[in-house]
C-alpha cells in the first residue's frame, strides 16, 4: 500500500518538476526569440498602422511588403549588402590561403627558428585588437586607403587563432601519409593541395564559417575606416539608418532593413548549425 503511494508521489513530483523545467526553458527561448519575432512582425506592419498602435499588437492584421521596398529605396541597403558580401568573400578567401600556408609550414616543414616563430605567433593571440587598431588606423590613413576595400580588408585578414587551429588539425594527419606521398613523387605543395586540404576539409569549413560570421558582423574597424556611404558595410549601414535614415521615425522600414541584414547569417546558421556550434565550442574551449 505504502509502496504504491510512494511511487505515485514520486511520479507526480517528477511530472511537476518536468513541466517546470520546460516552462523555464520555454521562457528563455521566448526571450531569445521575441526580438526576432518583433522585428519581422514590425517590418510587415504598415507605417500608418504601426504609428497608430499605442499598444503594439502582437500580430499583424494586414501584412505589407511595402517596408522592404522602402528599405531598399530610401537607403542604399543593396549597396551595403554588396559591400559586405565583397568584404566578407575577399577577406575570408585571402585569410584561408594565408593561414593554410602558415599552418602547413608549422605543422609539416622543418626549418630553423620554427619553434621560436610559433611561440611568437601564439603570444600574439593574447593581444587585444583595441591595442593595435590605433596604429592600423593611422597606417591605413597614411596609405590613403580610407574608404576603400583594401583598407577594409587588409588588417582583417590574419587570425593567429585559426592558424593554430589548422596547424593542430594538420598535425593529426599521420606522418606516414607524407612519406607515402614523398615516395610517390609528390611535392610539398602538391601534398598540401591534394592530401592535407581534402583531409582537413571539416576544419577549413568551420574556420570559413566563423570568419564569415565575424566579417559580416564587423563594425568597429569599418566604422573607423569608412565615412563614405559607398563603402559602408551592413553594420555601419544599420547605424546610419538608426541615426539618419527614414526620417528616424519610420520604424517598420528600419525593421525591414534589420530583417534583411540578419537573414543571411541566420540562414547560414540553420544550415550549418552543427559545424558552427562545434567550431565555436572548439575555438572557445581552446581559447
Amino acid at each position, binding site marked *: 500500500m505504502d509502496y504504491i503511494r510512494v511511487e505515485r508521489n514520486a511520479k507526480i513530483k517528477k511530472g511537476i518538476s518536468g513541466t517546470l523545467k520546460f516552462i523555464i526553458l520555454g521562457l528563455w527561448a521566448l526571450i531569445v526569440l521575441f526580438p526576432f519575432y518583433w522585428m519581422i512582425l514590425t517590418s510587415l506592419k504598415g507605417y500608418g498602422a504601426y504609428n497608430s498602435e499605442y499598444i503594439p499588437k502582437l500580430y499583424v492584421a494586414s501584412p505589407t511588403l511595402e517596408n522592404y521596398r522602402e528599405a531598399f529605396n530610401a537607403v542604399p541597403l543593396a549597396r551595403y549588402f554588396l559591400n559586405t558580401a565583397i568584404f566578407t568573400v575577399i577577406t575570408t578567401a585571402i585569410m584561408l590561403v594565408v593561414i593554410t600556408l602558415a599552418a602547413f609550414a608549422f605543422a609539416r616543414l622543418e626549418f630553423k627558428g620554427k619553434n621560436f616563430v610559433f611561440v611568437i605567433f601564439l603570444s600574439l593571440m593574447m593581444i587585444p585588437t583595441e591595442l593595435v587598431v590605433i596604429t592600423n588606423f593611422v597606417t591605413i590613413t597614411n596609405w590613403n586607403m580610407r574608404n576603400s576595400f583594401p583598407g577594409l580588408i587588409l588588417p582583417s585578414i590574419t587570425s593567429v587563432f585559426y592558424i593554430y587551429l589548422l596547424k593542430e588539425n594538420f598535425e593529426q594527419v*599521420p606522418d*606516414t*601519409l607524407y*612519406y*607515402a*606521398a*614523398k*615516395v*610517390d*613523387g*609528390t611535392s610539398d605543395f*602538391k601534398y598540401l593541395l*591534394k*592530401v592535407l586540404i*581534402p*583531409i582537413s*576539409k571539416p576544419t577549413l569549413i568551420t574556420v570559413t564559417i566563423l570568419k564569415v560570421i565575424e566579417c559580416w558582423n564587423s563594425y568597429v574597424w569599418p566604422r573607423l575606416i569608412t565615412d563614405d556611404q559607398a563603402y559602408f558595410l551592413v553594420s555601419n549601414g544599420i547605424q546610419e539608418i538608426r541615426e539618419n535614415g527614414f526620417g528616424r521615425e519610420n520604424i517598420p522600414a528600419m525593421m525591414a532593413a534589420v530583417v534583411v541584414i540578419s537573414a543571411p547569417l541566420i540562414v547560414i546558421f540553420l544550415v550549418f548549425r552543427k559545424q558552427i556550434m562545434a567550431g565555436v565550442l572548439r575555438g572557445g574551449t581552446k581559447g
Partner: protein
Amino acid sequence: MEVVLDHLTKIFPSRDKKNPADVIAVNDFDFTIPDGKLIGLLGPSGCGKSTTLNLICGLLKPTKGRILFGEDDVTELPPEDRGVGLVFQNYALYPHLTVRQNILFPLQNIRGEGRPTKEEMNAKAEEAARLVQIDMLMDRKPKELSGGQQQRVAIARALVKRPKVLLLDEPLSNLDARLRLQTREEIKRIQTETGITTIFVTHDQEEAMSISDLIVVMKDGILQQIGRPQEVYDEPVNMFVAKFLGTPQINMFDGRVSGGFLYIGDTPVLKSDAPEGDVHVGIRPEGFILADGPEDDEEVAAGVEPFECDLKAVEVSGRDVSIVSTNPACQGTNIRAIMGSDRNLNVSGEKVSFYLKPHKVYLFDKTTEDRVK
C-alpha cells in the same frame, strides 16, 4: 634490380640533452641484395632496420656510404626519382580518396614525357588491383575496407609504378594472426609473380623465415648475418642470432671445453674439438634425445654421458611434446626440449636425461659471444 649498400652509415644527432651521444642507427652496412629476391630485414625493435629501409627508399639521407640500384648510384636522388614502392605499417592510404584514386595517385605525379595517358593510368591501376585481388573494391574508401584489404591496396599503390624495388615496413604487424599467415603467402606470391626485388622489415623471425629468400639479421645498427633462412638458423654466427631465431628459443648453458669433451656442469655431454676453456652453449629444443636406456643409440660417442636434468613438466601439443626441465648450468629458467610425438615417451619421476645431437649444439666465445664451433 640488384641493390648494393656500400658502407652505409646513418647517425642521428642526439636530441636528448642529458645524453648527448649520437645515435648510430645504421653502422657501416656493406652488402648486396641480389636481383629478384624477397629479403627479410630482421631484428628487435630499435635495431635500425626501419632506418635502413628509409635510407634505401630515400626518405633519409645516409651520413656515409652509398646506395646503388644496379649500376646507378641513387644515394643523392630524392625518393620519387629512385623508382621504389613503399608500403607502410599503417598502410598510409589517403582517407579521402577511393581505392582507385589511391592507386592512381603515384601515376598522376609523373610529369613530362613519362606521363601515361588517362587510359594507360586506368589500365595500370586495374592491373595492379587485379594482382593483389582487390579489383572489385575499386570505388570504396579505405575506411570501408578490412585491414587485410587496406594492406592489399597499399601494395597495389606501391606496385603501380612498376618500381625497381618494393619496400615493406612491418607489413603484417597490424593484422590479426590468421590474416597474417594468409597475407604473408600473398606477399610471396606477388613477389614471385612480379619478380621485383622486395625488401621487408619485420621483428617477427617466424614471418621472416617463412617467406624470405634471404634474411638479414641486425642488432644495434650492426649487421649480424645474411643468408638463406635455414642456413642462418642452422649456422648462426653468434649468440644473438642463435637466440633471436627459432621458437621456442634456443636453450643456453654455461659450459666448458676440456680434454676433447664439452662439459655442462660436470657431465661430458659431447665430444668437441673446440679450443679449451669456458663457453656459452646453445642447444636447440629439437637437439635433445631422450636417454631411455644406455644401449639404444649408436650415435652416442664413447665417453659421453647422459645430461641429467630435473623434470618440471611435460607439455603435449599433439604434433610434438615439450619436456620442460631445469639444470643449474642453464642460463634461462627452464630447459625446453621438443620430441616428436610419434614415439611413445616414457617420462616420469623427478629426473630426465638427454643425449644431444651434435649439429644442434653451438658453442660461443664467453666474451665476444661469437660462434666458436
